């Protein structure tokens, strides 16, 4: 992500209205240069430092053993920030060992409406081709894999040149934008998939020989795969299940793979970690700001609120920007522990009130967001279910999967401490639609 670090453009923690808004921009994942100043370690209130665990598992992998790390989380939980941090940490030499991280942003290589294994293999090849110190032409398997790809393309009705260095960028663009070609390519790949998989395996192995000895292990970080929309494949089964449960596990390369996946697959009957080799699933949860179900009186989770207060204090000068602690606590509570929502709410406060912001400013700023939830929730069949979740902290076993998916993806229900318990977003709880569906009403 190439942009100027935020601390180079404004003084942090921010004090003025415009600065507060800029410092709390919810659409900026932290880049490595910003980590030191803005990253707050929330691991203590998220169950554990899950990204450090991913790093440790990679570093601890023995000899020829490679790990598959499957990462997911809600929109706004900080996936991209965490993956960028992971990449940055893995590149650092620790105990004499650093890793060659190949960051594959799915957006750069894939068309969201047709993502399947053959395209992913080509993506890995394309990503390797632009890595420094790597020259695919100097490998044996690179030109062979390219030859195979050309053959498939020809069958799909597209001729492409033999110079892979020159032609890979062309193919990369085509596979992103030409949906018709992508589909044909996938269809024509069916008979060649074993060869392609074998060749990409050989290629990765050969590429490793071109890297410095203390950095010869490769880690593919494949980001944004969780954004692939679900749909039906040509055989009328779920695309997500086909891709993540059947095809991607076939990708067996001599490298560690970290990839993101749709959170809805956490609730699939087949567990991802069972189908991938040496795999672990990691879900980045929200920060708990309310006590778990089972507590006598479910008040604030003091540790969660304190952690988010520290996070906020890195960006805005709390004692100048807020009238009192109550206002800070109020805005944190309304965020539901979703960092992006917290930043958005604080970033919006300058548009409704003057500094210092009071609890009244918090009430004013959330009004529009409550209305937004209101419009979206009204008439929804799952409204009574929300009360069960609020009360028990769990989805009943017979919950409709599509409802579950909608609720989690839309941040109506939030997940805490990696699936231990759930709660309804505080802003959703404020809607009339929610209140009207209460069993007591």
């Amino acid at each position, binding site marked *: 992500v190439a942009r100027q670090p935020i601390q180079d453009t404004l003084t942090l923690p921010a004090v003025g209205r415009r600065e507060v808004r*800029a410092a709390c921009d919810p*659409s900026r994942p932290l880049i490595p240069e910003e980590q030191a100043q803005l990253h707050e370690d929330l691991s203590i209130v998220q169950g554990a430092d899950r990204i450090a665990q991913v790093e440790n598992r990679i570093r601890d992998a023995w000899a020829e053993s490679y790990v598959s790390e499957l990462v997911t989380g809600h929109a706004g939980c900080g996936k991209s920030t965490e993956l960028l941090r992971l990449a940055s940490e893995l590149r650092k030499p620790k105990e004499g060992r650093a890793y060659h991280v190949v960051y594959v942003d799915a957006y750069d290589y894939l068309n969201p409406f047709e993502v399947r294994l053959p395209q992913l293999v080509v993506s890995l090849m394309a990503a390797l081709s632009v890595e420094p110190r790597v020259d695919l032409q100097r490998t044996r398997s690179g030109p062979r894999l390219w030859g195979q790809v050309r053959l498939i393309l020809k069958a799909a009705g597209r001729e492409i040149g033999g110079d892979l260095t020159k032609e890979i960028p062309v193919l990369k663009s085509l596979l992103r934008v030409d949906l018709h070609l992508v589909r044909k390519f996938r269809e024509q790949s069916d008979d060649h998939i074993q060869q392609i998989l074998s060749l990409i395996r050989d290629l990765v192995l050969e590429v490793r020989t071109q890297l410095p000895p203390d950095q010869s292990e490769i880690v593919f970080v494949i980001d944004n795969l969780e954004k692939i929309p679900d749909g039906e494949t040509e055989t009328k089964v779920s695309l997500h299940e086909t891709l993540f449960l059947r095809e991607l596990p076939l990708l067996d390369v001599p490298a560690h793979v970290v990839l993101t996946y749709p959170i809805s697959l956490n609730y699939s009957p087949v567990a991802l970690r069972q189908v991938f080799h040496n795999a672990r699933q990691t879900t980045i949860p929200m920060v708990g700001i309310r006590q778990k179900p089972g507590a006598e009186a479910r008040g604030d989770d003091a540790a969660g609120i304190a952690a988010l207060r520290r996070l906020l204090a890195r960006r805005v000068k709390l004692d100048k920007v807020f009238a009192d602690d109550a206002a800070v606590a109020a805005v944190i509570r309304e965020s539901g522990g979703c960092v992006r929502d917290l930043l958005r709410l604080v970033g919006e406060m300058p548009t409704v009130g003057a500094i210092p912001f009071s609890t009244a400013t918090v009430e004013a700023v959330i009004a529009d967001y409550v209305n937004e939830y209101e419009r979206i929730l*009204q008439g929804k069949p799952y409204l009574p279910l929300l009360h069960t979740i609020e009360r028990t902290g769990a989805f009943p076993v017979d919950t409709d999967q599509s409802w579950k998916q909608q609720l989690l993806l839309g941040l109506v229900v939030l997940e805490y401490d990696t699936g231990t318990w759930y709660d309804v977003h505080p802003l959703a709880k404020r809607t009339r639609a929610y209140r009207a569906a209460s069993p007591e009403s």
Partner: protein
Amino acid sequence: MEAVDLGAENDERMARLREALALGEGFQLVIVQVEPGEQREEVLRRLQGWAGRSGVPWLELVCLAPGESPVMRLEGEHAGVILVGLEADGVDKAERTRTMATELNWSRDRLPERVHGPLVLVVSQRVQSELFEQAPDFYSWRMHSTSIVPQPRALGRLPPWFEPEPEDPAVLEAMIAETSALEPPAIRELGRLYARLARARALRGEDAEAEAALDAAYDAYVRAGTLDDRVDLLLLRSDLAARTGRKEDASAWLEQARQKVRSGLPGPDVSAKLLFHEAMHALDRGDFRSAAAALPPAIEAVTTLGDLHKEATLLIGGAALAFHLHAMQEEKLLLERAVELLHDAGQLALEAAALTLCARAAALAGRSDEAEQYGLDAVARAEASGSANTVAEARARLGRIALANGHLELADEVLRGEVAAVGTHPGGELAEARAHLALCRRDDADAERHLRAALEAYRREGSPWEVAKISLEIAELGRRTQNWTLALTGFEAADRLGDTGQRAVAALGLAELSLARGEVTAAIADQLAVASQMAVAADAATLADRSRWLRGAVLLALGRDAEGRMELEIALAGFETRGQAERAAEVRDLLAQLGERSSPRSSDSSAAVHEARSKRTP
């Protein structure tokens, strides 16, 4: 372009939006939810007006063409963008919108590279829900979001006054204050009073107060109400949402009422009310198939309850349905039955209203004497009821019928005199009828005065179709009296607010005004092409022929003979098919002249345009 009043609440939201845009740095995603139509046009006008001023970054309006990808359209670099068109058109619009939402979600991280300032998405509620559900990553990036709420407007299904006169909120508030002081507390009664207050406030267009009263009623029912009370309140919410044009909300509340009924054992009263609302909701949405299925059980249910008013309302709804199905006899019978019921119930104002509908039905069926008789009965009952709105509506209807029958004296008699309903929908109808009477008398100044009064009433009420209709009448009056400003503003307003047919008339009118000023340009030819396309879409064949005829002449004047000839030939075929021999002859003349000339000469062509125009103008 005239400014549209968004209302105080929306103005406040717009002010916040402006502030958010001005405070932002670099890329920021902003979502503005406003339904397509007059309000959206106004929002876009304001956004464009702010662009590059008072700290708001430059904003470029990007309207997606049907089938166009938003991500592809944003290729390149933009300072700031207002993006519209995510609603998509056509039968697969839901699928298209879903695809666009997916694209935005997928490409989210690259958007800041393309848009360096605000990316303002102006979307409908449907699209906003799609983004929320299908594009959560993209949606979660929003830095600011706001919603422009519809302004109070008339009932779609029935005139707003076809119900008992609204209660006085002040009286209800006094009752609430007294009831609140009772010991032991009468919580359930308070809930009922708040529900009545909500209705009274909503009927006066005081939406925020109505909402507060609904919330208070809800709280009271949670404490002491029954299932029936809660369902009743949900039905009231649905009804009030329908009155303000929020059909999606109306459906949603109705669905909640259904769920609530299913979850318990409601009384027969509430079940009947639910059936009633379901039938009326189907009529409201123009879902005639569902309405036809829902009406009989609903009528049976309310008849069992002995609720004459609701039964009459359903019968009138059934009459409207029969009208749409061209079952005129059935319409008549249903309306007459409704009149009887309302008479038995002793509801004079409603009886008058139903008689007015009978008069309209008779007039539309060509039974003019019967229409006048119903109209006279309606006026008599309305006067006796003392309801200003009912009097205005009954008089307006009878006045129109008398005018159509050529009975100017009767029209004059019923339309004369002061009526207290100024500024309401019936007041608008009365002013409109008075304007027509003035036009019959060739009193242009009086006609303009009444048309403006009608325009004001409809505008205040928020009825864009009626506003467009009156605007077109004003424009025609302006053209006839050579008041070009009046004509221009009238056509422009209709072009902005009207349905496809009205916009076709307005586009043709605007093109003709330009021609009358001596402007013969390619832009006018394009405008006439749009007019003819819209006329075709609105099934207005004659209007389409006229547009093609004039466009053909303009193209000849521009030296684009081949295109001009084609347009004229299509127009000629249309005139011949529809038996418009005189016009067909004029087109043939033009085509003959075209055949004679060896090379295009703009002066001749201009004359042809002029000739065509002068002959065409009535």
